[in-house]
């Protein structure tokens, strides 16, 4: 029953609404301000990317440090063994 009523409401509203074009943000694109939004999004995403790259560099540095430590400690070990 509820489904039928909603269907009827949809039919009526669609008849009413179909009379005009769907509303789109044409004006926003026409006066060029959409580029500001794109710039804002790019800045935000760019910051996230820069942050990820920084974290990655830090991890890489730690990995290299650990590798060097491991190799020097094993070198001293073999020296002691000799």
């Amino acid at each position: 029953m509820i489904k039928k009523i909603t269907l009827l409401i949809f039919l009526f509203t669609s008849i009413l609404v179909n009379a005009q074009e769907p509303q789109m943000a044409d004006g926003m694109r026409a006066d060029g301000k959409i580029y500001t939004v794109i710039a804002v999004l790019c800045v935000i995403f760019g910051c996230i990317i820069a942050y990820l790259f920084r974290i990655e560099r830090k991890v890489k540095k730690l990995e290299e440090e650990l590798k060097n430590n491991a190799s020097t400690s094993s070198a001293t070990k073999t020296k002691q063994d000799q």
Partner: protein
Amino acid sequence: MKNWYKILSVLLIFYTIFLGLLGSVPRLHILNETIRNVYYHVPIWFAMLFMMSISIWYAIKYLMSSNPNHETKSFNAAKVGFFFAIPGIITGCLWAKATWGTYWTFQDPKLNGVAIGILIYLAYFILRNSLTDELKRARISAVYNIFAYVMLIVFIMILPRLTDSLHPGNGGNPAFAKYDLDSNMRMVFYPAVIGWVMFSYWIFDIKNRIAKLKTTLND
């Protein structure tokens, strides 16, 4: 050059920010400009599903090989996937408010399915963190992970397709097929999916390397 996918993901996401806002989209009632959310909301869910698939892949690999590194990777993938589910749900709520008139509706099987799926993965994290014996923890979490993934797929991919859903493409709702026909949207949507999937893999890679550092430090 093993970092190619990171740079490609960044380029693809920037491309979708530009063309997603500037490109032409079909003019539809009710949806209006919110149709552009297809470029941002949907790829995030794809990234989440991709990460959960990696998670089950490594869980199976662990059970076959008993290599604890595989289980750690499986856990990390589930964490990254869970992280992507949060913006997925929030963006979904905002979009639902604008088009369906409500932030959350229990009438939609996909929303319910996602809520249950997220709770299943929360249980996975709690289960894994509550076990102290390492071998037991790895085995039990890997087995649970497989069940969790199967439940997630059933709840978000299969059940919504069997009943009526407000989401497009489910329960005979034809809207997604309508955008699929629009080749302009496809040119942005597919790169967005690839970009976000690669981006999620990048975070997964960093998490794995940190986990590896931790285990070598502990040894």
